[in-house]
């Protein structure tokens, strides 16, 4: 369970998060939508401790992420994150990209890690690209590789940060399909996204961020059929028109 309690976060004088409260249960899929600069991506990097917070607390399975005593390296093993810009390691092959962390962080043997990596890569449809360097892959393939890389660590939570935003439109579908498979497998996911269809069909709940505040959160059907907050209504009608 991820518990976000009254989290404030600023970059210099810019307040990005202004008192966020959100609890994500095991097995739940929560989509976070909102305009750019609304703080949604920042929230994700705060959850796995890549960014510090100013006040409040974030607990992952009861462990306080931003406590000084918390071993973040250990905690991050169970929180996968996939970024907008793929962040493939260009000097490693697809297979090496995926086996790197299981071998070096979890201490798996090479064959052991490769077996897991091959399974994950086959799952995202890259079973025939193992020996290829990321530079030779399309954006969609690189992003699916990044998903396999996160999953190879057997995380309990996966955070998706606008994973389709940097993709050509015709490649968005293949990545969303991968996410859908993952959600069907019961993975706990927080997806920052601009894909409204995905948010509506795949997630259990949808949250709307506006200027650092979570203006609204509701089960996805309710959220799209009867948005309560005026800003949510404005945002959704802008998208639809």
């Amino acid at each position: 369970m991820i518990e976000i309690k009254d989290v404030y976060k600023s970059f210099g004088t810019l307040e990005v998060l202004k008192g966020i409260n959100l609890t994500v249960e095991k097995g739940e899929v929560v989509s976070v939508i909102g305009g750019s600069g609304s703080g949604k991506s920042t929230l994700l990097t705060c959850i796995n401790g890549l960014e510090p917070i100013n006040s409040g607390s974030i607990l992952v399975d009861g462990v306080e992420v931003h406590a000084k005593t918390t071993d973040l390296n250990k905690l991050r093993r169970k929180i996968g994150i996939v970024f907008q810009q793929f962040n493939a390691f260009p000097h490693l092959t697809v297979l090496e990209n995926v086996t790197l962390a299981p071998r070096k962080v979890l201490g798996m043997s090479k064959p052991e890690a490769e077996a897991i990596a091959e399974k994950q890569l086959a799952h995202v449809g890259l079973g025939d690209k193992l020996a290829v360097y990321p530079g030779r892959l399309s954006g969609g393939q690189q992003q699916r590789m990044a998903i396999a890389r996160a999953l190879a660590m057997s995380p309990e939570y996966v955070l998706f940060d606008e994973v389709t935003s940097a993709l050509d439109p015709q490649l968005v579908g293949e990545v969303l399909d991968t996410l859908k498979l993952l959600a069907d497998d019961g993975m706990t996911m927080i997806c920052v996204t601009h894909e409204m269809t995905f948010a509506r069909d795949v997630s259990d709940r949808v949250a709307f961020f506006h200027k650092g505040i979570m203006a609204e959160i509701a089960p996805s059907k309710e959220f799209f059929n009867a948005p309560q907050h005026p800003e949510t209504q404005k945002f959704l009608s802008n998208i639809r028109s």
Partner: protein
Amino acid sequence: MFTYTFQWRQAWQKIPLLLDGALVTLEIALLSMAMGVAFAVILAVARNSKSRWIYAPATVWVEVARNTPALFQIYMAHFGLGSFGIHLSPYIALLAGITFNNAGYLAETFRGALRAIPGTQLRAARSLGMPQTQAFRLVIMPQMFRIAFLPTTNQMVWAILMTSLGVTVGMNTDLAGVTQDINVRSFRTFEIFALAAVIYYLIAKAVTLGARLLARRMFRY
């Protein structure tokens, strides 16, 4: 005007001696590069540090190494330190001087290379649970070396040529030292220096070509 008679035969006979010297030259160049690269990585990281106590000494090193003559740096290692009772042999002084110089130049090359790697690479590595140093070693450094590879090769050629400055501190076993020794004994100045120059040229060329082949093997992405 042209009364100099070439006597190449005498010079040819010295080729084995010159080649022995060339080996010493290559040895010093390789050692100074290996140590230079190691120091340069540390300096490059230190130069990005926010702590003044780490940043300042590294910056002084880089500034002095890059903006004073290599000859002075070698002189300082031999005669300068000698004034304080620290006596380095010509070999060690030469090695230290060139290492100091290499590290200064390479540090800037590496720092530039580090800047060229997106910060998101480090974030991605850290988010997989890697500690900072491991992420740097496994994800950042390999990319840094690739970007910096060609300038590093240039520095290697410089290192080879800089070893010739060793004569000024009494180095007499490297190629320049051996050449000078033969010169003062035979006075076949033109012939012997011309031959030595050809050998320097061939070593430098071989290193450049070797580096190119190595790059083709190492960087397949």
